[in-house]
């Protein structure tokens, strides 16, 4: 049996006529990192605030560790939140900020000292314990907030876009830190972000949201490799979308596009239906042979870190992005070259609108 730790049953949130969340059903498993991913304004923070108890759902239930939360105020929920802007107390120093939850619980002094020191060690801030919070950097403030949220040993840690206020440089480092802290504490993480890279790096499972609804959920690989909608395909990384009509012959299933036939795996989609083919740039093989699915002219070459991406303009005027690996034997074609793009049928993902 799955060990569901936090459950949302049909959660809806309305403000007047505006529907912020629309029938959310979601189960978070004990110990996992589950990420809510979606564009700004899709309701991620709202769902998180409902879990923390700051908002009440208009309809629906929240269950944490088997208990109904409808009548439980935020301070009684064994859920802690890492706020987007940290929300550290300016009148307390680092030590007292982290000790706050234990002081509220009136723990003995000695226990407080030991537990705060353990947290300071966990977030690697031992030397900073008597700094005032305006005397530490953004990255350090983040870790203080993390320590403060974890010291009460919550069942679930809610993280609302925790990296968005940090410099790009320390963001990646902080992601690794979060992973390490998750490993060391075993706390269940509910993580919110609008950045698919963050979600891919961190998550055990990703829940993709749009306009107050869950669009799709799955592991990072599933989300990237098997998008079920145009929205999901576009949201996860770069992709080429080609519209077309599904056609079948005796030995072959393909999408008929303005740039010719693209062979796909037969997924029992009825013949003649309009579909979108999503092809990742790295799935394309560029060749100068005449045969190949899509023919075009190299218009531009971008060097992005270790990757080289060619923009190929097809006969019908559609621009494709295709990746060439620097290490591969095939050399990058020059701008203006006539090339053909092909890809394995398994790498073409068909999605509907």
């Amino acid at each position: 049996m799955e060990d569901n730790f936090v459950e949302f049953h049909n959660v809806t949130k309305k403000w007047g006529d505006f529907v912020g969340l629309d029938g959310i059903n979601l189960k978070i498993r004990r110990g996992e990192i589950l990420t809510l991913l979606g564009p700004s304004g899709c309701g991620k923070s709202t769902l998180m605030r409902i879990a923390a108890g700051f908002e009440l759902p208009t309809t629906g239930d929240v269950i944490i560790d088997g208990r109904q939360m409808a009548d439980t105020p935020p301070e009684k929920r064994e859920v802690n939140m890492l706020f987007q802007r940290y929300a550290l107390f300016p009148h307390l120093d680092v030590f007292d900020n982290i000790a706050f939850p234990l002081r509220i619980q009136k723990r003995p002094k000695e226990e407080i000292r030991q537990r705060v020191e353990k947290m300071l060690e966990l977030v690697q801030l031992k030397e900073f314990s008597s700094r005032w919070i305006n005397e530490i950097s953004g990255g350090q403030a983040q870790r203080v907030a993390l320590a403060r949220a974890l010291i009460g040993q919550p069942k679930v840690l809610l993280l609302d876009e925790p990296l968005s206020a940090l410099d790009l440089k320390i963001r990646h480092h902080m992601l690794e830190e979060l992973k390490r802290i998750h490993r060391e504490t075993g706390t269940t993480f509910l993580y919110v972000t609008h950045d698919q890279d963050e979600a891919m790096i961190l998550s055990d499972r990703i829940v993709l949201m749009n306009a107050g609804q869950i669009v799709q959920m799955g592991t990072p690989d599933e989300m990237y490799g098997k998008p079920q909608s145009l929205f999901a395909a576009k949201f996860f990384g770069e992709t080429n979308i080609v519209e077309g009509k599904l056609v079948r012959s005796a030995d072959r299933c393909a999408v008929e596009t303005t740039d010719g036939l693209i062979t796909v795996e037969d997924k029992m989609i009825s013949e003649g239906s309009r579909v979108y083919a999503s092809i990742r740039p790295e799935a394309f093989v560029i060749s100068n042979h005449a045969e190949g699915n899509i023919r075009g002219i190299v218009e531009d070459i971008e060097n992005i870190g270790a990757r080289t991406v060619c923009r190929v303009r097809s006969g019908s005027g559609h621009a494709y992005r295709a990746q060439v690996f620097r290490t591969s034997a095939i050399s990058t074609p020059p701008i203006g070259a006539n090339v053909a793009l092909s890809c394995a049928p398994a790498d073409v993902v068909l999605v509907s609108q």
Partner: protein
Amino acid sequence: MRLYLTAFLLFLFGPIAVIVLFSFHSSPALIFPFQGFSLQWYGKLFANAAFRSSFWNSLQVGVATTIITTVLGSLTALALIRMGRRSKIVVEVLSLAPIGLPGLFLGVALLTLFARIGLPRSLVTITIGHVLFTLPFFVEAMRSRITYFDFTLEEAARDLGASPWQVFSRVTLPILAPTIMGGAMLTFALSFDEFIITIFVGGNDTTLPLFIWSLMRRSIEPTINAVSVITLLLSLAALALAGLMLLAQRRRTAIARTPLFED
């Protein structure tokens, strides 16, 4: 620029320096040349029973006004920032309006009111008048700071297990303490030298400003300088007290923990 600044400071502090100097003058002359130091004006002042009682009255009224205004004003300000937009504007205008009213008007109005309800004029009526007069200033002083108060701090405290009361006593209040103290000091200063309303609602009780005024009516005596210096010292003491309290609060949190790290 520098010249301007010097002139400005001279203009601001020059008169104060002169007053302080002449309060220690050994002769009644209020002009230079200075003829030596003496404490005779202070002695004379404290020998005056009218001064002593008016000073004591002013202190009582000042402290009472400060306490009442600080409590009422803090509650008003805290309620104000939590209100919906429309009701907020109404309350804001209503509570701010008295600042624009002439003291004369407030004095007459209060006098009529007290006469109607049969409240005899006393230190109590003076205090009521001062509370009404200082409250809008207090609320305004709080409001401008409180607008920047980060309410996610209260949510964070709630989230970390604090009950609504604990949130108030351990987060909201300590963070706003410096602002509240500033407002309290302002209130005391306003009450201590309030004149017009006091004349109307004071009856037979005299406060320090009324006493000074009665002194002035007779002649300009050097005791006036001594009174001014005492008032000045009182304000400085209030300022220093507030500063020390803030410092002590910070020190306390630091000290309370230091021994723990040594064992």
